[in-house]
């Protein structure tokens, strides 16, 4: 339930969350929920509800929501939404908004990406790769100048530069 009496409302909050005006066209049909695998989770991911929270400007409720993080990125909602809201991308935008407002939301995997370039040990799976007859790949750690360039590039983005202590060392 969304309790408007109890909540503080931030006008135009949607502009800060999602850089798409199309979110305003959401008419609550629920098509996004009807096709969503993660609507089976408990608590359920209900994209329609998240769109309401964004449009109504309910900052505290939206900051507390864990459900945007249970999306499987299947984009079924994106396919069926009759109003072009792009619900999957809205879910990602809500995650980013949470990350901007609460550093505990920063996914630890982005630190791995910064340091190694990968979310899995691509350059370390030497024995497993050899067991199926494959050699090593031209991974970025083998090109120190490229890795440095990649890190310099990321250091110029907000999430890395504003939280640089996480990425160094």
């Amino acid at each position, binding site marked *: 339930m969304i309790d408007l009496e109890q909540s503080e409302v931030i006008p135009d909050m949607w502009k800060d969350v999602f850089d798409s005006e199309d979110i305003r066209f959401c008419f609550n049909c629920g098509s996004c929920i009807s096709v969503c695998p993660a609507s089976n*989770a408990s608590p359920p991911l209900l994209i329609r509800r998240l769109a309401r929270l964004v449009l109504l400007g309910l900052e505290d409720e939206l900051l507390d929501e864990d459900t945007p993080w249970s999306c499987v*990125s299947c984009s079924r909602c994106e*396919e069926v939404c009759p109003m072009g809201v792009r619900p999957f991308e809205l879910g990602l935008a809500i995650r980013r908004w949470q990350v901007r407002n609460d550093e505990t939301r920063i996914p630890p*995997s982005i630190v791995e990406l910064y340091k190694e370039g990968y*979310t*899995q040990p691509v350059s370390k799976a030497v024995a497993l790769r050899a067991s199926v007859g494959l050699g090593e790949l*031209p991974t970025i750690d083998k090109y120190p100048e490229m890795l440095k360039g990649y890190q310099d590039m990321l*250091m*110029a983005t907000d999430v890395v530069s504003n939280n640089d202590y996480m990425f160094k060392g």
Partner: protein
Amino acid sequence: MSKYGLFLGCNTPALRPDVEHAIRKSMPQLGVDLVDLPGFVCCPAFGTFPSADEDAQLATNAWNLSLGEAEGLDLAVQCGSCYSSLSMGSHLLKDPKKLTRTNELLAKGGRSFKGESKVRHMMDVLYNDVGVDKISKTITKSLKGLHGIVQFPCHTLYPSEVVGFEPDKGPPHVLPDLLEALGATVEHYSLEYQCCGGAGGFHKADAPAAHNFLKSKLDAIKTETKADFIVVSCITCLMWMDVQQKPLSEAGEETYNIPVFDYNQLLALCLGAPAEQVAAISTINRDAVIEKIK
């Protein structure tokens, strides 16, 4: 001969390199040359930069795309998440403002991106470049007598405007057609279009619900078909459907042991590649199917 930059991502080369070897062995035999991309990084996966910072997301997408573009190559991708992330990135980078900002960032890393290099899924390349006729004519072994069902990777279907490569409107048929080209009988069932549920944060948020979601699919396959195997073309579908059958069997009365293959693995086997190289890693034993490929 067509030529692509081979974008492998993280999961395939690190966890299922037999799938990588299947791709490397099968595609050139069908006239598709694959070139490695030195200095590639994670696509980035949706749970990483796309969930944290759009500039970092698009810069990372463009970093990978620029590696192909510098060689005049489009990218060929098997992993559904990589394919979707790179396709979404390319799509967003059609916005000149985003492309300009991304190039400012890329310049700090000594790279640039014009927006020319495209992203193609392995199934798309096989179906639309190579064609099912050529596949049927080139294989030396076949799946004749075997029944299979397909798991459509969501990331290759939706949103169709951004990622789609099906030639017609209506139900997708590229993967079933590719499987039939190998001689298999493709069966259909009620939950065919249901997601496997393995990607992203669903199972982290509620593991029992994610397991039940997969169980409903496996139950439908078991009761409605004579499937000897499941074929996918996405590393996440492959690992999730292969690895989770064991805990599902241990948790209940029903036993689940349906072998799962990536399409390129079956293709490579039909082209005579050794199973020790192209279909060596799995939780569910696949020998019974491999032995019948003659």
